[in-house]
């Protein structure tokens, strides 16, 4: 993931907080706000020329910019992509100045600003689910979304794209459930573009796992920066190889699954969540 914005703050003329939203829990909220108030006084004393500046504070990076009487502050992780976040602040400033600045000056309620901030600050994380036909990708998608599990194989056409109902930090997870039938293989490379996590699903039979090694290669060529995890699905069947064995063959971290058993749901969400956050941590170096 390229960035996670932890908080968005807009302060007015007298350094009063006119909008604030935290996306991640923070233990030091009070001292943070005091710090921001001091920061705005400082910002007003220096010439920013409409630029977005930033400074590192412990594990965070604070981005700030001044427009007329308003100070805009984003708090992000130190390792995040600064250029993108600066772009986001600028987006927000344009939207705010256009629709909300007059209201704020007149002390009117800022209706709808919350959604605008979300639009700017909430990011999308793409998780692609890849694997050959009938291994249980669509079943996995339904499991993750907490939906009724279909028991027959209704082959996916092209790709089916659904959001995960729960957010990870303030990121929306978009699941791309690709079609596994061989005629759709021409789409795979294109469809995994920009995925931060690729989940390779196998049905844990030897034949299928061996074939799936090709998918691991495809992913490492097309999206070298993505996190890749293996799924040893259909562990309830007698033919299933152990997850350890599947992991050895694929040479990627691999987890067991019975996609038709809802008791696996929470575990799987945690696995995906972990790989998203780890993927982000990787970018630090």
């Amino acid at each position, binding site marked *: 993931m390229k960035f996670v914005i932890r908080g968005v703050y807009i302060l007015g003329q007298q350094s009063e907080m006119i909008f604030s939203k935290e996306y991640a829990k923070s233990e030091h909220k009070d001292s943070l706000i005091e710090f921001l108030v001091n920061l705005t006084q400082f910002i007003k004393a220096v010439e920013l020329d409409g630029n977005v500046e930033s400074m590192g504070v412990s594990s965070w990076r604070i981005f700030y910019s001044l427009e007329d009487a308003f100070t805009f502050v984003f708090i992000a992780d130190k390792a995040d992509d600064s250029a993108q976040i600066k772009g986001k602040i600028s987006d927000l400033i344009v939207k705010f100045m256009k629709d909300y600045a007059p209201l704020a000056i007149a002390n009117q309620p800022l209706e709808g600003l919350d959604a605008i901030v979300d639009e700017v600050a909430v990011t999308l994380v793409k998780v692609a689910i890849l694997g050959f036909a009938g291994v249980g990708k669509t079943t996995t998608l339904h499991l993750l979304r907490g939906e009724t599990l279909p028991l027959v194989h209704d082959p996916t*056409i092209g*790709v089916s*794209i659904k959001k995960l109902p729960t957010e990870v930090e303030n990121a929306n997870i978009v699941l791309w459930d690709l079609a596994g039938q061989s005629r759709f293989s021409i789409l795979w490379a294109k469809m995994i573009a920009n995925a931060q996590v690729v989940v390779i699903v196998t049905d844990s039979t030897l034949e299928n796992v061996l074939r799936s090694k090709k998918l691991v290669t495809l992913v490492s060529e097309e999206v070298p920066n993505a996190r890749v995890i293996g799924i040893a699905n259909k562990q309830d069947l007698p033919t299933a190889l152990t997850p350890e064995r599947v992991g050895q063959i694929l040479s990627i971290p691999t987890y067991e699954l019975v996609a038709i058993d809802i008791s696996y749901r929470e575990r799987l969400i945690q696995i995906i969540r972990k790989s998203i956050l780890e993927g982000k941590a990787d970018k630090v170096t």
Partner: protein
Amino acid sequence: MPEAIFVVHLDDYQGFVVEKRYPSTLSLNEKALNLVYYEHEKEKATNLKFSDIEGMRVVSFAERTHPGWVVCFVLGADEDYETEDNNMAGMARLILELMSEVPDAVNLREILGNESVLNEPNEEQKMADIFFTPSSALLLERLEIEGVEKAAKLSIWLQTQLQTDTIELHEIVEPLMQSGVIKVELLGKTGETVFLVKDIFGYRAPPVKSIMKAMEADPEMGKKYKQLVSSFFSPPTGKGYNPTLPLDDPNSPLLEDREKMSRLLSKSLPYMVLECLREGPQEIGNIAQKTALPLETVQSILWSFESDRVAAQLDEYGIWVLVSDPVIESFMPEFILPAISKKLADKELAPETAIRHLELLIEEWGEICD
């Protein structure tokens, strides 16, 4: 006429997004969008496809220059696909171009109603693509010296010039091949050979035709217009514009200018406006009507023409005129003949290759020369 149109775009994060639809009540499901997209991915060579998607008769159009985009026309039950296909391709091309330049101004209903189309790039535009693609222009310069060369050797030469070891020779060669400037052939066992068969020259020409039109219509206005053009090409002070000066002459029109002119020619929307102005002085509303482009789009194109000194406004008449006309001309590269005979004498070139080159030149220029 098609009953409905929709424009789909595959976004890397959100998946299929229906960017525009007409009528607005048209409902589409994910599976239909998948099938339309898949048809084009399956076979990229053809731009226009007919498919029956869940009972819906769809003609879809996709183009390499707009990856991830598909324009679809929904046909009525008894509508014939073949009789309309040219029109639909033209409309789709226009829609794609507008979507990438001025998405908010795209009005499917109007485009369908007026059957507004964008033609396929013509010869001049294809040649402009060469100067507009710096590595292709570089390769052309090399071929102006070599005349003929093995593809593998050119590839190595380009790698050193561009200082990378991952060049896509095919992509660089594409604009040169499309415009017929080079021919690539497999000769013997030596791999592909690249022949220069046309050379091209890009410059700003005085808009003679347009001035004459103006003179006919209104001599007074024509005179003012002519003055405007003269002040660009031969201003009372300063050097004026002379495209034949060698490139290393400090007064020579810059390469940068040539690239700018080529961009203007190869981009479809500005080109439509340019072609309109070549016909003579025009009111902006007139240009919008003739090109079927949104007025705001025409306006912003004209402003950019103005800042590039391609067009200007004659304020008192409320019209736009062409000041300098960006053109690209092709001619026979006879200057490479000595290089070829020298290579032949030095045994750097097989006689068959030299003969093939002459054949190609004759095929291209023979009729015109004799």
